């Protein structure tokens, strides 16, 4: 594998140095391995995200204007240790508490919880909302055990906007929970990424098979199925999402007239051409069901090196979430203007 790196064990640190340069003065490097916005106003409820590196542009690319205030960054594919979480927490705290919002992975939960305990020693109030949008990683009755994948992009965008408007940590927590509850994702993988430190693939899969519901590190999902066309696969994936809203007692089924955000994400190697072909079919399926795409996000958001694969995420908007979506945002991962694209 030809890989444009220097010391394989320094990838996470060196990419963060580059990310700070990409932010061109809006964010700075803090402590061991965190990135934090420069202009967080006093009295603001803070939003902290984070997770393993190697999935760029998330998670740390979602720090920015009307987005997260900071990110605690782990090593490649590894959760940030508690001391990094603490350093980031202290750097974003403006006296109104800090919301931790991150993907539900065992390592992240352990380390962010340890970080929260350390922050509590410093009298910083922390609350946690976990992102669990990957419907293939557990049934609806156990949805709190699911992994977090590309649904985190609209979720962090909505929470980041809300963090500018709310007066209390509890209000921000409520918005983030609502965004999580209304978001569902399904991914497929066609080929693995590699671990930069070893050069080895993250998983193995036959050339003529795809992993339906496979996680971004190769965690198993529904199972392996024969390679399919973009149209067939898109229908299959969206049906899993529709079925999940239907089966989940806590949310309504997606119904005609509902307004959603649609995310079409590449896991790294899948090209924009392929994403657009899938998006074309997804839009047709949604239109047929009478579901309105309020906004569409298409591109590389949640990746795993040169992993080949695609994921769809849907977030259903209500009036409150729509108001937060309409706010502009800017970051390395995702930027938008006021309102909706084309609106």
């Amino acid at each position, binding site marked *: 594998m030809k890989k444009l790196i220097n010391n394989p064990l320094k990838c996470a640190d060196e990419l963060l140095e580059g990310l700070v340069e990409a932010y061109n003065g809006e964010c700075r490097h803090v402590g*061991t391995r965190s990135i934090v916005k420069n202009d967080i106003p006093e009295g603001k409820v803070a939003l902290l995200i984070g997770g393993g590196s190697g999935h760029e542009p998330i998670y740390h690319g979602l720090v920015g204007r009307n987005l997260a205030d900071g990110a605690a960054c*782990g*090593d490649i594919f*590894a*959760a940030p240790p508690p001391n990094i979480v603490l350093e980031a927490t202290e750097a974003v705290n403006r006296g109104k508490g800090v919301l931790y919002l991150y993907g539900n*992975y065992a390592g992240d939960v352990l380390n962010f919880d340890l970080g929260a305990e350390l922050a509590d020693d410093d009298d910083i109030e922390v609350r946690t909302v976990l992102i669990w949008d990957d419907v293939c990683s557990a049934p609806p009755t156990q949805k709190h055990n699911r992994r977090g994948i590309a649904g985190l992009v609209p979720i962090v965008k909505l929470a980041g906007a809300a963090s500018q408007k709310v007066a209390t940590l509890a209000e921000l927590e409520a918005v983030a929970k609502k965004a999580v509850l209304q978001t569902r994702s399904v991914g497929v993988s066609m080929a693995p990424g590699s*671990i930069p430190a070893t050069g*080895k693939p*993250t998983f193995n899969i036959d050339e003529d098979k795809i992993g339906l519901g496979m996680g971004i590190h190769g965690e*198993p999902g529904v199972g392996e199925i024969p390679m399919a066309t973009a149209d067939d696969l898109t229908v299959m994936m969206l049906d899993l999402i529709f079925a999940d809203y239907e089966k989940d007692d806590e949310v309504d089924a997606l119904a005609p007239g509902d307004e959603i955000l649609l995310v079409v994400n590449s896991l790294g190697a899948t090209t924009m051409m392929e994403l657009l072909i899938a998006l074309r079919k997804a839009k047709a399926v949604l239109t047929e069901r009478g579901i309105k795409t309020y906004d569409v996000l298409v591109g590389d958001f949640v990746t795993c090196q040169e992993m080949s694969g695609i994921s769809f995420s849907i977030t259903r908007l209500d009036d409150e979430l729509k108001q937060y979506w309409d706010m502009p945002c800017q970051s390395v991962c995702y930027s938008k203007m006021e309102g909706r694209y084309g609106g």
Partner: protein
Amino acid sequence: MGKSSLSITEVRDMMLAAAQRIIEAEPILTDADRALGDGDHGVGMERGMNAVKEALGGKDFPSVGKVFVGVGTAMMSSMGGASGALFGTFFRSGGKALGDGESLDAAGLALFWKEGSDNLMSRGGAKPGDKTMVDAIVPAAEKAAESTGQSITDALAAVAVAAAAGRDASESMIATMGRAKTLGENSLGKPDAGAVSVAIIAAAMSEFASGL
């Protein structure tokens, strides 16, 4: 009959030897984790143990417990991931339980393993039989508790055998927690990578002490 106890310096050097053994075992751990997890356990443990070498090498410690706390802090703050938090919790809580003691005997070893094991389980939520590092740690802690009347050398040897047996037993477990939980029955036949690491550390500790 081996030595009755180890000095602070001997404990420090024993943990440096264990760190070196894990670093050398990186390819084994990587392969074990690729089979059932996301393949990063070997690299993470190597990173953690390099931090342990830096934290311990040539340093003086006021107590045996502080050596173990130093191991845990180095792992927790350098590794990240679930393994960093869990190994860090294990070594830190086990070390704290030893207080100001300036030597490690078999009774101290039993206390270290018991406190480390209990705190690890309450932090991580895994129980014996879930196919995690707990499946090597709990039998090791139980064996340490049975070995309090022995020399430290014999106690460490017995603990190492128990940890290895626990690692082997994890092969026939179906994962319900941790790295392989989503694999279900497909996790059968291979050991948990965290349990492999525990067995390597316990073996290296025993070998170091028996060579004194």
